[in-house]
């Protein structure tokens, strides 16, 4: 039983010794560094650029401007390609631009011997711009007279809507109560500890090698080919160890430039390292959303109807475009399938850093608004928050009203009941009744979510693995699944070991990926890797096992049906007694002069399901009203992610996601000057992601269901933990103080304003109630 055990990550020792090599740890001799000249205004057009002084500086190898790069635009989103050209990503990027669309846009690039020289050369470039009014707020962006940030776009990247269930308007009319409010979420950033870093060189006259910190090596290969009009098979992408991505590296941002530069510098290695400050504004962020939710509710606790209208802001470039708003809304049906719902969303350009994929892809925004609104509906009929949800949520066997697929596994009700017990809901509800007045108050909150295990049917879901039996009887796996820190290599090894009957120590996934040899997979995103890989791993393992047993039969003269593998030995299937050890067999496969051959099994599998996953957060908070501070006393997350393959690693995922959710709730946001589009706090000191001291104890637990569409019963887990902490904490704040705060993050200053508005703080000569 290798699955279900908390085995130690296969890369743990490499990482804890500092021997794991990340992109920044690799070096090519004669490597040049490239640095971007970034715009100092957020919207405008370059009318003149003079790079002659920069070019003549000693140590500068080259300077390229937007005039020197290919004209054809390309799309950067790390999606699988759609064969339907109408579903392709928006191609609105060039390697460099003279049309400035956010403060920090890339106008030119200097390639030099070192970063200091490059930096000094950048200072020598003279740029003249015509500025345009900065468009940040939806009302300005959608003004018919507003300048089009991308010509012909009307400042819209996409728009769509859907509805399911009975007639919403009439259900609203007949509802006992209708609650309606608007919610806002902030622009936040991934803040993986490893910045984007890439270097490229040519190992032949016509082949480009790209070493990069990416979640999607095979997609990088395709998009670089598209951007440079260069044959894909002559591009090789190497993915070393990755220091986190959270979606930010599911985008092809700098690889095309690195490839372009080496191509134009006679194959010399060129590196692009983001500084942290560049990383913050010049890669990707999470889309801020403006969401209006109207909820109809009956006195008996039935959610009668829901109407959701969302505006997502993608910033300067489409990147993942409207997909994020579409995906975020698409999860509503799986959570409340019995409630007639209408959803409408549009995605707008703005003169802001470009938003792309980030952990849970639109769901944190939509589920925040939805679960705040659900809480408000429960309170409108004074029903217990947990009971209200239990009455309305999805149950196993329900049909997802959007995909029309049956939900085969759903443990959400059990998650709610487990979480309610873990937080001590009933007893604290009574106890905290005494904490509803005075300066320090306490409250409880809950919120649910649903999510998916991959992107099907929107995108293809393909996973590939190649297993081979080594000479010593161990197994190596080449997997298309991309390990970026989430632990996919370890659980894939566990899966294969489980099916093969080989101990997990003897099964290893090759860590580094190289698109020349790594089997095809579209990469790490959508919490998909363990789920979509499961069937490929299962089938490949079954096949390799067959090969092994067939060879054992030839060696022993026994029929292969009578043989099995257990604890690294061929055993008799009835008595379980060993008949042959795997090492002997493996040597025979390789070195016997006539029989056998290296035993391998390779499967590429397309998954045509996407099992919904569920979970909830319970929050117990204390609010210091005069100090405008929320203290998280306890946070509980309970998940239905199917069978848990590695409990310790799974809990680690939950802890990390919850911490990211806490940051988004209480402190994380880009502070932006609405006049200029400048991000004030683009660094890790001023962008407040939680430190060790800001992160409370987090309890993680699982309701294990066995998902039949998965090879090992597992479903998605990577992204979901981030989704429900924000609404749970907001609902706890409402419980504690009676004050609804409908925007994220709920910073002390936001609390100050809310408490002042609601009379809990008297402004001026201060005092409090």
């Amino acid at each position, binding site marked *: 039983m290798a699955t279900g055990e908390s085995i130690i990550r296969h890369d743990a020792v490499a990482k804890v010794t500092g021997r794991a090599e990340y992109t920044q740890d690799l070096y090519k001799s004669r490597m040049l560094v490239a640095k971007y000249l970034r715009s100092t205004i957020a919207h405008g057009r370059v009318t003149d650029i003079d790079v002659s002084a920069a070019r003549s500086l000693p140590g500068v190898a080259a300077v390229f401007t937007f005039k020197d790069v290919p004209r054809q635009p390309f799309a950067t989103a790390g999606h699988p390609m759609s064969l339907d050209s109408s579903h392709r990503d928006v191609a609105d990027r060039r390697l460099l631009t003279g049309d400035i669309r956010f403060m920090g846009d890339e106008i030119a690039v200097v390639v030099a011997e070192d970063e200091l020289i490059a930096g000094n050369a950048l200072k020598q470039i003279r740029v003249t711009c015509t500025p345009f009014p900065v468009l940040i707020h939806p009302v300005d962006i959608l003004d018919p007279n507003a300048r089009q940030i991308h010509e012909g776009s009307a400042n819209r990247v996409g728009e769509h809507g859907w509805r399911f269930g009975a007639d919403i308007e009439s259900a609203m009319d007949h509802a006992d109560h209708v609650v309606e409010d608007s919610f806002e979420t902030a622009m936040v950033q991934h803040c993986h500890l490893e910045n984007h870093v890439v270097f490229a060189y040519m190992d032949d006259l016509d082949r480009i090698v790209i070493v990069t910190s990416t979640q999607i090596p095979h997609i990088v290969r395709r998009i670089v080919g598209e951007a440079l009009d260069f044959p894909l098979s002559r591009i090789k992408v190497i993915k070393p160890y990755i220091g986190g991505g959270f979606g930010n590296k599911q985008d092809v941002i700098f690889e095309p430039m690195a490839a372009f530069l080496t191509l134009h510098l006679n194959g010399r290695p060129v590196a692009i390292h983001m500084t942290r400050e560049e990383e913050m504004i010049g890669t990707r962020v999470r889309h801020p959303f403006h969401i209006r939710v109207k909820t109809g509710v009956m006195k008996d606790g039935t959610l009668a109807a829901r109407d959701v209208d969302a505006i997502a802001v993608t910033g300067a470039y489409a990147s993942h475009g409207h997909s994020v708003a579409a995906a975020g809304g698409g999860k509503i049906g799986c959570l409340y399938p019995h409630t007639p719902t209408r959803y409408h969303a549009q995605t707008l350009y703005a003169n802001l850093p470009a938003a792309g994929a980030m952990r849970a892809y639109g769901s944190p925004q939509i589920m925040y608004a939805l679960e705040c609104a659900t809480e408000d509906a429960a309170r409108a009929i004074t029903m217990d928050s947990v009971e209200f949800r239990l009455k309305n949520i999805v149950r196993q066997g329900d049909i997802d009203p959007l995909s029309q697929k049956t939900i085969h596994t759903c443990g959400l009700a059990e998650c709610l009941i487990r979480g309610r017990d873990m937080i001590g809901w009933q007893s604290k509800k009574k106890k905290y009744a005494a904490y509803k007045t005075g300066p320090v108050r306490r409250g409880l909150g809950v919120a649910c979510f649903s999510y998916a295990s991959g992107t099907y049917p929107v995108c293809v879901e393909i996973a590939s693995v190649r297993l081979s039996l080594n000479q010593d009887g161990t197994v190596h796996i080449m997997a298309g699944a991309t390990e970026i820190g989430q632990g996919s290599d370890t659980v894939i090894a566990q899966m294969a070991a489980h099916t093969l009957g080989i101990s997990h120590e003897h099964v290893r996934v090759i860590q580094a990926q190289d698109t020349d040899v790594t089997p095809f997979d579209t990469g790490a995103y959508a919490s998909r890797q363990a789920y979509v890989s499961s069937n490929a791993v299962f089938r490949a393992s079954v096949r390799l096992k067959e090969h092994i047993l067939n060879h054992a039969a030839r060696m022993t003269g026994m029929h292969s049906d009578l043989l099995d593998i257990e604890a690294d030995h061929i055993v008799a299937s009835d008595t379980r007694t060993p008949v042959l050890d795997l090492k002997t067999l493996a040597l025979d496969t390789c070195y016997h002069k006539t029989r056998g051959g290296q035993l391998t099994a390779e499967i590429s599998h397309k998954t045509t399901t996407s099992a919904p996953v569920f979970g909830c957060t319970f929050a117990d908070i204390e609010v210091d009203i005069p100090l405008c501070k929320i203290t998280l006393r306890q946070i509980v997350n309970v998940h239905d992610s199917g069978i848990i393959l590695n409990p310790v690693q799974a809990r680690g995922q939950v802890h990390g996601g919850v911490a990211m959710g806490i940051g988004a709730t209480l402190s994380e946001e880009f502070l932006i000057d609405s006049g200029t589009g400048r991000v*004030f706090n683009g660094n*890790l000191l001023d962008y407040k992601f939680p430190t060790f001291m800001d992160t409370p104890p987090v309890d993680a637990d699982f309701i294990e269901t066995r998902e039949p569409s998965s090879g090992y019963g597992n479903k998605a887990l990577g992204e979901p933990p981030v989704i429900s902490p924000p609404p749970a904490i907001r609902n706890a704040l409402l419980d504690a103080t009676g004050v609804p705060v409908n925007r994220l993050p709920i910073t002390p*200053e936001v609390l100050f304003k809310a408490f002042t508005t609601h009379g809990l703080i008297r402004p001026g000569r201060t005092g409090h109630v």
Partner: protein
Amino acid sequence: MFDIQSYMKAGSVDEAVALLAAHPNARLVAGGTDVLIRLRHGSRDFTRLVDIHGLAELRFISLDPLQNIRIGSGTVFTDLAQSDLILRHLPVLADAAGSVGGPQIRNMATIGGNICNGAPSADSAPALFALNALLELKSNRGFRQVPVADFYLGPSVVDLKPGEVLVSIIIPREAYQGYAGHYYKYAMRKAMDIATIGCAVSLKTSGNRLADYRIAYGVAGPTPLRCPSAEKTAVNQMISDTLVSKIAAAVEDDVSPRTSWRATREFRLHIISELARKVTRTALDRVRKE
């Protein structure tokens, strides 16, 4: 790499003074946590450095024969936060030192640098203001002493004259003996942050009265500042909740916070007032514990 144009290592304070005299454009670097960040951000003011990093001569915490506490300007915050002498006599400074950045920063950053960079958010400044600290500066013209409150001239401007080295910080005996104190840093995170408001209180009681009361703030104006009207309200008054509320109201007359992208003036004013309450109460609790 930093764009350092010239680097001169000083082996002693006298050498530093001589190097500064010989190179008027050069600036001192000690812990590096501020100067190197400025260089990283392209500052041209610090490209010529006289290095006093790790000078043992500047790293001390001692009691002089007159019972004044002397702190070398090169003393790092970890030393201050862990020093028995500071913990016993200057808890307000120990609190402040322990609230700076994170462990690495506290291991590197010096109290002298914290004062000389002139930041209104310097955590050590309100504590030193509340302790009536004196700064001892040395140049090739000799020593001079200046009260810390007079050292701050304006936003990020301090009275560090060309060629001067801040050598030590002196807390006079009469400024701390018999006093209890507390510093509270109000920030967006519990570590690795810049104070939204920093508040230090140093007080002495006599029976049920406040015999002396000093309150100082960081980020409540262009420089760290004391609150004369609040102090006047407090001194010689009976200790009570009403008095604490009066102090909390009075500080608003002494401060002039501004709106920045970090926080609005209104919010800062509110926190300033609340901290007067909170920090005073904690300082009073400390008196009771002694």
